[in-house]
Protein backbone atom coordinates (compact mmCIF):
# COMPACT_ATOMS: atom_id res chain seq x y z
CA UNK A 1 0.00 0.00 0.00
CA UNK A 2 1.44 3.34 -1.04
CA UNK A 3 2.21 5.73 1.73
CA UNK A 4 3.17 9.31 2.42
CA UNK A 5 3.92 10.06 6.05
CA UNK A 6 4.42 13.36 7.81
CA UNK A 7 6.44 13.72 10.97
CA UNK A 8 3.75 15.34 13.12
CA UNK A 9 -0.05 15.56 13.05
CA UNK A 10 -0.19 18.56 15.36
CA UNK A 11 2.50 21.08 16.19
CA UNK A 12 2.50 24.20 18.38
CA UNK A 13 5.37 26.65 18.06
CA UNK A 14 6.18 30.15 19.20
CA UNK A 15 6.73 33.17 16.98
CA UNK A 16 10.33 33.34 15.79
CA UNK A 17 11.08 29.64 16.23
CA UNK A 18 12.59 27.61 13.40
CA UNK A 19 10.18 24.85 12.41
CA UNK A 20 10.89 21.67 10.48
CA UNK A 21 8.13 19.64 8.84
CA UNK A 22 9.21 16.34 7.35
CA UNK A 23 7.61 14.17 4.71
CA UNK A 24 8.59 10.67 3.62
CA UNK A 25 7.21 8.63 0.73
CA UNK A 26 7.83 4.97 0.02
CA UNK A 27 6.78 4.88 -3.65
CA UNK A 28 10.07 5.94 -5.29
CA UNK A 29 8.31 9.01 -6.70
CA UNK A 30 10.35 11.70 -8.39
CA UNK A 31 8.04 14.60 -7.53
CA UNK A 32 7.27 15.87 -4.07
CA UNK A 33 5.17 18.86 -3.07
CA UNK A 34 4.39 21.00 -0.05
CA UNK A 35 0.98 22.68 0.11
CA UNK A 36 -0.69 24.92 2.59
CA UNK A 37 -4.44 24.52 3.15
CA UNK A 38 -6.58 27.32 4.55
CA UNK A 39 -10.40 27.47 4.74
CA UNK A 40 -11.94 28.91 1.59
CA UNK A 41 -8.61 29.05 -0.24
CA UNK A 42 -8.13 25.41 -1.21
CA UNK A 43 -4.57 24.13 -1.46
CA UNK A 44 -1.77 26.50 -2.39
CA UNK A 45 1.62 25.27 -3.52
CA UNK A 46 4.58 26.39 -1.44
CA UNK A 47 7.44 24.45 -3.09
CA UNK A 48 7.94 21.36 -5.14
CA UNK A 49 10.89 19.15 -6.01
CA UNK A 50 11.35 16.98 -9.10
CA UNK A 51 14.61 15.33 -8.08
CA UNK A 52 17.11 15.11 -5.24
CA UNK A 53 18.52 18.55 -4.41
CA UNK A 54 16.23 20.15 -7.00
CA UNK A 55 13.48 22.54 -5.94
CA UNK A 56 11.16 25.08 -7.48
CA UNK A 57 9.12 27.83 -5.88
CA UNK A 58 5.38 27.49 -5.93
CA UNK A 59 2.78 30.20 -5.54
CA UNK A 60 3.50 31.21 -1.94
CA UNK A 61 7.18 30.49 -1.09
CA UNK A 62 7.80 33.56 1.06
CA UNK A 63 8.85 32.66 4.59
CA UNK A 64 9.55 29.02 3.69
CA UNK A 65 12.45 26.96 2.42
CA UNK A 66 12.79 23.26 1.55
CA UNK A 67 15.37 20.53 1.49
CA UNK A 68 15.54 17.28 -0.45
CA UNK A 69 18.72 15.37 0.27
CA UNK A 70 17.22 11.93 -0.39
CA UNK A 71 14.64 10.90 -2.93
CA UNK A 72 12.13 9.72 -0.36
CA UNK A 73 12.32 12.71 2.00
CA UNK A 74 11.20 16.32 1.51
CA UNK A 75 11.44 18.81 4.35
CA UNK A 76 9.68 22.15 4.74
CA UNK A 77 11.41 24.74 6.90
CA UNK A 78 9.92 27.84 8.45
CA UNK A 79 13.00 29.93 9.18
CA UNK A 80 11.25 32.19 11.68
CA UNK A 81 7.67 31.18 12.33
CA UNK A 82 5.00 33.84 12.33
CA UNK A 83 1.35 33.72 13.36
CA UNK A 84 0.19 34.04 9.74
CA UNK A 85 1.84 30.67 9.08
CA UNK A 86 -0.70 28.94 11.30
CA UNK A 87 -2.26 26.48 8.88
CA UNK A 88 -2.63 22.88 7.73
CA UNK A 89 0.41 21.70 5.77
CA UNK A 90 0.04 18.84 3.31
CA UNK A 91 2.81 16.92 1.60
CA UNK A 92 2.23 15.02 -1.64
CA UNK A 93 4.23 12.93 -4.08
CA UNK A 94 3.76 11.78 -7.67
CA UNK A 95 5.56 10.06 -10.49
CA UNK A 96 7.25 12.26 -13.03
CA UNK A 97 5.15 12.35 -16.20
CA UNK A 98 4.23 14.98 -18.74
CA UNK A 99 1.06 15.56 -16.82
CA UNK A 100 -1.87 13.75 -15.30
CA UNK A 101 -0.09 11.82 -12.59
CA UNK A 102 -2.07 11.15 -9.46
CA UNK A 103 -0.75 12.88 -6.36
CA UNK A 104 -0.59 10.90 -3.12
CA UNK A 105 -1.08 12.93 0.03
CA UNK A 106 0.10 12.60 3.59
CA UNK A 107 -2.31 13.06 6.51
CA UNK A 108 -1.26 16.67 7.08
CA UNK A 109 0.36 18.64 9.89
CA UNK A 110 -1.74 21.21 11.67
CA UNK A 111 0.67 23.92 12.77
CA UNK A 112 -0.26 26.58 15.29
CA UNK A 113 2.13 29.49 15.81
CA UNK A 114 1.52 31.45 19.01
Amino acid at each position, binding site marked *: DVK*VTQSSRYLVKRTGEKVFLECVQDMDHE*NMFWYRQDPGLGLR*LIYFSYDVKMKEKGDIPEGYSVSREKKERFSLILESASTNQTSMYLCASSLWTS*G*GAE*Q*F*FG*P*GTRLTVL
Partner: protein
Amino acid sequence: AQSVTQLDSHVSVSEGTPVLLRCNYSSSYSPSLFWYVQHPNKGLQLLLKYTSAATLVKGINGFEAEFKKSETSFHLTKPSAHMSDAAEYFCVVSDAAYKYIFGTGTRLKVLA
Protein backbone atom coordinates in the same frame (compact mmCIF):
# COMPACT_ATOMS: atom_id res chain seq x y z
CA ALA B 1 -3.53 29.82 -17.76
CA GLN B 2 -5.27 27.17 -15.79
CA SER B 3 -8.06 27.78 -13.33
CA VAL B 4 -10.76 25.76 -11.64
CA THR B 5 -14.02 26.92 -10.10
CA GLN B 6 -16.11 24.86 -7.73
CA LEU B 7 -19.49 26.44 -8.01
CA ASP B 8 -20.78 25.56 -4.54
CA SER B 9 -18.87 25.93 -1.30
CA HIS B 10 -21.48 23.89 0.62
CA VAL B 11 -23.95 21.23 -0.54
CA SER B 12 -26.51 19.45 1.66
CA VAL B 13 -28.34 16.31 0.59
CA SER B 14 -30.46 13.74 2.35
CA GLU B 15 -29.15 10.22 2.71
CA GLY B 16 -30.19 8.12 -0.27
CA THR B 17 -30.64 11.08 -2.65
CA PRO B 18 -28.33 11.98 -5.56
CA VAL B 19 -25.19 14.05 -5.14
CA LEU B 20 -24.01 16.67 -7.64
CA LEU B 21 -20.83 18.66 -7.02
CA ARG B 22 -20.04 21.11 -9.77
CA CYS B 23 -16.65 22.01 -11.23
CA ASN B 24 -15.72 24.22 -14.18
CA TYR B 25 -12.19 24.55 -15.45
CA SER B 26 -10.10 26.63 -17.78
CA SER B 27 -7.00 25.31 -19.52
CA SER B 28 -4.97 26.17 -22.58
CA TYR B 29 -4.14 22.54 -23.29
CA SER B 30 -5.82 19.18 -22.95
CA PRO B 31 -5.97 18.93 -19.20
CA SER B 32 -6.02 16.10 -16.74
CA LEU B 33 -8.78 16.48 -14.18
CA PHE B 34 -9.12 14.97 -10.74
CA TRP B 35 -11.55 14.80 -7.86
CA TYR B 36 -10.16 14.28 -4.37
CA VAL B 37 -12.01 13.77 -1.10
CA GLN B 38 -10.83 14.90 2.33
CA HIS B 39 -12.43 13.57 5.48
CA PRO B 40 -11.96 15.60 8.69
CA ASN B 41 -8.35 15.80 9.83
CA LYS B 42 -7.18 13.53 7.03
CA GLY B 43 -5.17 13.96 3.87
CA LEU B 44 -6.66 13.98 0.40
CA GLN B 45 -7.67 10.75 -1.30
CA LEU B 46 -8.15 10.36 -5.03
CA LEU B 47 -11.75 9.62 -6.06
CA LEU B 48 -11.24 9.57 -9.81
CA LYS B 49 -9.25 11.10 -12.66
CA TYR B 50 -9.73 11.99 -16.31
CA THR B 51 -6.71 11.81 -18.61
CA SER B 52 -8.15 12.00 -22.16
CA ALA B 53 -9.57 8.50 -22.32
CA ALA B 54 -13.29 7.87 -21.76
CA THR B 55 -15.23 11.03 -20.95
CA LEU B 56 -17.32 9.28 -18.29
CA VAL B 57 -15.01 8.34 -15.46
CA LYS B 58 -15.93 5.95 -12.68
CA GLY B 59 -14.25 6.25 -9.32
CA ILE B 60 -14.32 4.73 -5.90
CA ASN B 61 -17.33 4.51 -3.58
CA GLY B 62 -19.86 4.83 -6.41
CA PHE B 63 -18.76 8.29 -7.60
CA GLU B 64 -18.43 9.22 -11.25
CA ALA B 65 -17.71 12.33 -13.29
CA GLU B 66 -18.25 13.36 -16.88
CA PHE B 67 -15.75 15.43 -18.83
CA LYS B 68 -17.61 17.89 -21.08
CA LYS B 69 -15.17 19.84 -23.20
CA SER B 70 -17.82 22.07 -24.77
CA GLU B 71 -18.99 23.17 -21.32
CA THR B 72 -15.52 23.03 -19.70
CA SER B 73 -17.07 21.09 -16.86
CA PHE B 74 -16.19 18.05 -14.81
CA HIS B 75 -19.07 17.58 -12.37
CA LEU B 76 -18.98 14.84 -9.74
CA THR B 77 -22.08 12.72 -9.17
CA LYS B 78 -23.28 9.82 -7.08
CA PRO B 79 -26.74 8.24 -7.40
CA SER B 80 -27.36 7.75 -3.69
CA ALA B 81 -25.62 9.58 -0.85
CA HIS B 82 -24.38 7.76 2.22
CA MET B 83 -23.61 9.28 5.60
CA SER B 84 -19.95 8.35 5.12
CA ASP B 85 -19.80 10.64 2.05
CA ALA B 86 -19.85 13.71 4.28
CA ALA B 87 -16.49 15.35 3.60
CA GLU B 88 -14.81 18.09 1.59
CA TYR B 89 -14.29 17.53 -2.12
CA PHE B 90 -11.69 19.17 -4.32
CA CYS B 91 -11.62 19.46 -8.10
CA VAL B 92 -8.11 19.70 -9.57
CA VAL B 93 -6.85 20.54 -13.07
CA SER B 94 -3.37 19.79 -14.38
CA ASP B 95 -1.88 20.44 -17.81
CA ALA B 96 1.82 20.18 -16.94
CA ALA B 97 4.02 17.84 -14.97
CA TYR B 98 4.22 19.88 -11.78
CA LYS B 99 1.25 22.15 -12.11
CA TYR B 100 -1.88 21.24 -10.21
CA ILE B 101 -4.56 23.87 -9.62
CA PHE B 102 -6.99 23.13 -6.82
CA GLY B 103 -10.51 24.43 -6.47
CA THR B 104 -11.52 25.99 -3.19
CA GLY B 105 -13.48 22.91 -2.16
CA THR B 106 -17.10 21.88 -1.67
CA ARG B 107 -18.19 20.70 1.74
CA LEU B 108 -20.81 17.97 1.43
CA LYS B 109 -23.25 17.47 4.28
CA VAL B 110 -25.44 14.37 4.34
CA LEU B 111 -28.62 14.57 6.38
CA ALA B 112 -30.15 11.50 8.00
